[in-house]
Each structure stands twice: as structure tokens, then as C-alpha cells.
């Protein structure tokens, strides 16, 4: 089965387009070379760090148990480690390290041979190493690997459209970073975010589906849809004075007002989902007009409602799982610590649930909004051309 699958892909990729064959091959070779260079660089970049990095070469483990508060036994390992320093003036020297790890590994590291760790080294007056301590694990190479796999996959499967998605993601990351840099000044947070959201919407839709009437109607629909859903969310929040929403999770990190930041996060999270709906429905309506320019308004409304019903459930599902998955670790930690459901619910899930619900409301609302806007914009075109 896998064999015939590979054959299928090969057939589609290569045999169908002999003319593009050489050009394509060259592009692919270039991409593969680039990603290999990238992989080589990220696995050998220790020299760029100022902090000393050690590579684990030997581990001696001593196992024991620790009694926990709820009278359970937690397996503990004490690791005596030898590591070679990979960079700086001490390059090549071996240091001895101590490390303790538990079975749960909630906030400790279970080190393995050839893991790389950041060290903090104590010297004596003669500049000889007295002792060394592990401060953290070196993780950048794994981020590099996974990004590499992602980029390769999206180009292989999506080809040109995959490349467009990559470009749109990169542009959006840039806008996002500029927005965060502006936040540092601490004022006009809302204004900056609204401008950034406008850019997000216009650029993403233009990059993903090109410059045409369909994109134009999707942009207008997304703008209106986002505005209406944020209006609803804003009114609900204002009337109920943030009741039932706990910001402890955010306050730990923020000096800025968490309410404002959370509302901005709601806008950004919602506009992505609305964009998806707006593009799907306006493409479908354009398709209907293309097949039959004189199609009745009623028929269009009926079909696009059906499409909307098809997608809204699964889209809302997507948001709920994407948002809630991040809280699983903390919920399990709290469950194991014997906290009550109601506490866990309000402490850990209130923010994520609000995001998912506001996003879902946006999805559902944008279905009729996109429908009417697309009919208005796309129908005019047909009349004008005829």
C-alpha cells in the first residue's frame, strides 16, 4: 500500500510535467542543500555562544525514592555526569556535574549521553575550574530540526501554495514582532493592535489567494466579521465586568494591564478563524457565479448556508483543541495535587475557553456576513462585465 502510495506521488510530481522537469529538479536540489546546510549549522553552533556548553559523555546513576506529601513514593535518580566543554577558552576540558531528576520530570532534566547543557563554571584565582553547575539544556537545535521538517513538508505537499503560506506566515511574524516592540512603549496598545490586525488581514488574504475580487470580498467580510464579533465580546465583557475570568496566569508575566492584552489576543485569535471562513465561502460563491452567472440569489444563499453548516462545527472544534491543549500539563499537575474541579476550571481554563468561544462565535457570525458581502461584491462584477 505504501509502495503504491509512493508511486502515486512520484507519478504526480515528476512524470506529468516533463517540460518543468529540469527546472523543478534544480529547485528541489537547492532546497535540500539549503536545509542540509541549515541542519549542519544548528548542530554545530556552540562557538556562537558566550556561555560555556558541555556535552554529556558519561553518566553514573544512583536510584532512590522520595516520600511525597500524599504518602506516595516518587522514584528519583541522582546523576553523576562527566561532560566535555564544547566552546570558549576551556574547550576540550572535562568537568564533573551533578544532576537530580525525578520520574515526573516536571521541572528537572533527565539527562542522556550526548545531551548538551549550559554550564555555570566557578574558577579559582589561578583561573582553574573548581566546579561547574548545569543551568539549562541546549534546545535550539531541536527547534531548528522541527522547523526544517515543517518547511520541507509544506514545500513538498503544497509546492507553490505551500511557499505562499510560508511567506504569509513570515510576513505575519514580522508584523507581530514590530507590534510587540511598539508595546514596550506602553501606550496606545489598542491603536497599534488595530493597525496590526488590518495589516494581518489584508496581507494574509492577498498572499494566500491573490489579488482579485474574491480576495477583496474576503477582506471586507473578515473586517466586518471581526468587528462584529469583537463588539459582541466587548459588550458581554463590559456588562459582566470580567466575571469568572481569572488573569493570574497572565499577571505572573505582565506589567501591562492584562485585560487590555487579553482583549488584543482575542482579536488576533479570532481574525485568523474568520479569515478562513471568509475565504472558503467567498471562493464557493465565486465558483457558483462562474458556473452560472445568472444564478438566483436564493440558490446562492441556500448553497452557502449548506457550506457554512458543513464547516462551522469542525472549525469551532479546531479552535477548542488548539487552545485547550496548552493547558493539559497544568491541569494534570493540579489534578494530581488534589485541587477541586471548579478551582482548576476557573484558574486554568477560563482564559482559554473564552478565546475558543469568542473565536467560535466569530466563525458562526462570519458565515452570513461573508455570504451577503460576497453576493454584493461578486455579483456586481458579473453585471459590469456583461
Amino acid at each position, binding site marked *: 500500500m505504501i509502495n503504491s502510495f509512493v508511486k502515486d506521488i512520484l507519478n504526480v510530481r515528476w512524470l506529468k510535467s516533463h517540460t518543468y522537469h529540469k527546472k523543478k529538479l534544480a529547485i528541489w536540489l537547492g532546497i535540500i542543500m539549503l536545509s542540509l546546510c541549515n541542519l549542519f549549522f544548528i548542530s554545530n553552533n556552540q562557538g556562537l555562544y558566550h556561555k560555556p556548553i558541555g556535552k554529556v559523555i558519561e553518566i553514573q546513576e544512583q536510584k532512590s525514592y522520595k516520600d511525597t506529601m500524599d504518602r506516595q513514593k516518587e522514584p528519583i535518580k541522582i546523576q553523576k555526569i562527566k561532560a566535555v566543554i564544547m566552546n570558549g577558552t576551556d574547550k576540550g576540558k572535562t568537568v564533573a556535574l551533578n544532576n537530580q531528576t525525578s520520574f515526573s520530570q516536571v521541572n528537572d532534566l533527565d539527562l542522556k549521553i550526548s545531551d548538551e547543557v549550559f554550564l555555570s563554571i566557578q574558577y579559582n584565582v589561578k583561573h582553574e575550574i573548581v566546579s561547574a553547575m548545569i543551568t539549562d539544556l541546549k534546545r535550539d537545535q531541536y527547534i531548528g530540526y522541527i522547523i526544517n521538517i515543517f518547511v520541507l513538508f509544506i514545500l513538498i505537499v*503544497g509546492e507553490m501554495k*505551500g511557499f505562499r503560506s510560508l511567506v*504569509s506566515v513570515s510576513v505575519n511574524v514580522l508584523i507581530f514582532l514590530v507590534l510587540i516592540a511598539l508595546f514596550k512603549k506602553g501606550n496606545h496598545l489598542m491603536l497599534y493592535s488595530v493597525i496590526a490586525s488590518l495589516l494581518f488581514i489584508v496581507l494574509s488574504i492577498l498572499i494566500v489567494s491573490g489579488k482579485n475580487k474574491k480576495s477583496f470580498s474576503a477582506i471586507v467580510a473578515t473586517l466586518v466579521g471581526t468587528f462584529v464579533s469583537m463588539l459582541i465580546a466587548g459588550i458581554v465583557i463590559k456588562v459582566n465586568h470580567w466575571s469568572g475570568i481569572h488573569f493570574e496566569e497572565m499577571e505572573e508575566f505582565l*506589567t501591562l494591564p492584562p485585560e487590555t492584552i487579553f482583549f488584543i489576543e482575542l482579536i488576533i485569535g479570532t481574525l485568523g478563524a474568520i479569515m478562513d471562513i471568509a475565504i472558503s465561502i467567498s471562493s464557493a460563491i465565486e465558483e457558483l457565479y462562474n458556473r452560472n452567472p445568472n444564478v438566483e440569489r436564493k440558490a446562492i444563499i441556500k448553497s452557502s448556508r449548506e457550506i457554512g453548516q458543513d464547516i462551522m462545527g469542525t472549525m469551532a*472544534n479546531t*479552535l477548542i483543541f488548539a487552545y485547550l491543549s496548552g493547558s*493539559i*500539563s497544568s491541569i494534570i499537575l493540579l489534578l494530581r495535587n488534589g485541587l477541586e474541579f471548579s478551582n482548576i476550571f476557573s484558574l486554568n481554563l477560563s482564559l482559554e475557553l*473564552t478565546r475558543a468561544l469568542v473565536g467560535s462565535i466569530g466563525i458562526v457570525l462570519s458565515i452570513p456576513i461573508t455570504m451577503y458581502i460576497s453576493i454584493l461584491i461578486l455579483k456586481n462584477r458579473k453585471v459590469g462585465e456583461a
Partner: protein
Amino acid sequence: MNIILVLLIILLILMSVIGGTRGIQSFFTLILNFIILFLMMILIAFKIDPIKVTFIGSMIISFCTLFFINGYHKKTVASLISVIIVILLVMLITYHMSTSAKIQGFSSQQADMVSFYSVYVQINFAKIVICEILVGLLGAIIDVSISISSSMNEIYKNDSLITQHELFNSGMNIGKDVLGTMTNTLFFAYISGFMTLIIYLSISKYSLSDIFNMKIFCSEVFQSICCGIGIILIIPITAFVTSKLLLLNTKSNNI
């Protein structure tokens, strides 16, 4: 009144007005999925192996979502098969990397929050990371998979003489269209959850190299990219499985 409750009621009203009976069905499937997810977490907290719970739980969630929202049909069966294949594949690809990157649990920046609780809980948090990754991408792959397989089904209905090859190709084309919008949806969803952390990091004294090795940063990036890998993988797999399944009977007739 509690905001979440108000929002839930608004969602129910909107879904029933705009979506009719299917909207109400979708709403209750969402609630059901949430309950299944919560049950999964309780089972994991009772020390049942997180990987097994996640795998079986995601199958049940996919089953409910696909069959309750979209009904029993060849296209939903094809989607279910593809979703299960992708869950297994993503597990294979990410298991080794996520355990070596040690992105489980909490980082030193979250020490304040964790300090109230015992961190020795006899549950391996390295496995919880896999659970988070798979749950995070589950909704997205179900969505992409059903969009592709139902469009392929429509194509097949209109042209029953279509070959498996052509059907696979049109499935891939639909998939590429979905890919662009879906990456946007997920990108903005993740960025919105990410924002607090990024603001914190940009104000704090950490250098760029510190940030790229920080547990909390790496685990967020890792999870969102794994989600992206999932939605890419589901496209060819759904196109292939659906094209096989839809043409299953006609093929045997021809022979």
C-alpha cells in the same frame, strides 16, 4: 453573570439560528468533545499511560466529530482512517525529538506558579507533551480531512468514471487550497496564546540565545509547528485514502 456561560449561550443561539438542526448538533458535539478531553485528563491523572489514553481518546473524539457532525458515509470513514494514520505518524516523528528536547513540565520562569504544588506526582510529563501535541492538532486535522474528502466525494458524484489517479490529484489540489487558510487560522490562534509570553520576554533581560533555549519558549514553538506538520501530512493521506475508498466497489465491478 459568568462570561463563559454568557458566551456559551450566545454561541448556542447563533449556531441554531444560522446552522439549524446541524448547528445544534455541532454545538453539542463540541460540548461532548470537551467532556471527553476532560475525562482523558482525569484518566491520565489516575496514572494510566498518557500515550494510550491520548491515542484512544483522540480516536473517540474523531469518531464523534466525524460521524455526529457529518454523518456515516464513505467520506467520513476515509477521514477517520486518515486522521488515525496522521496521529500515528506525528507521534513517530515527534516522540524522539520532544523527549530529547525535554520541553515537558514547567520552566524556571513559571517557578512562582509551580511552587505551591508538589512536583513529584508519579506521572511522566515527557509523555504529557505528546498528549498536548496530539490534542492540539486533532481538531485541525479532522477539519482539513473532512473538507478534502467531502469535496472529493462531490467530484466523484458528478463524474463517476473518474480514475483513482485523477481523483487523487483533485484531492491534492483542494488540499493545497485548504492548507493556506488553515495555516492562517492556526497561526493566529497560536500567536494569540503566545502573546503574553512574548511581551514578557521582550521586556525582560533575556538575550536572544537565552530565549531560543528556554523551555517555555521552545515548547510553545515546538507544539505549534508539530500542529503545522499534522495539517500538511493529512492532505496527501486523505487524498489517497479517499480516492481508494470511493473507488473500491467500482473497481471490483470492472474486474
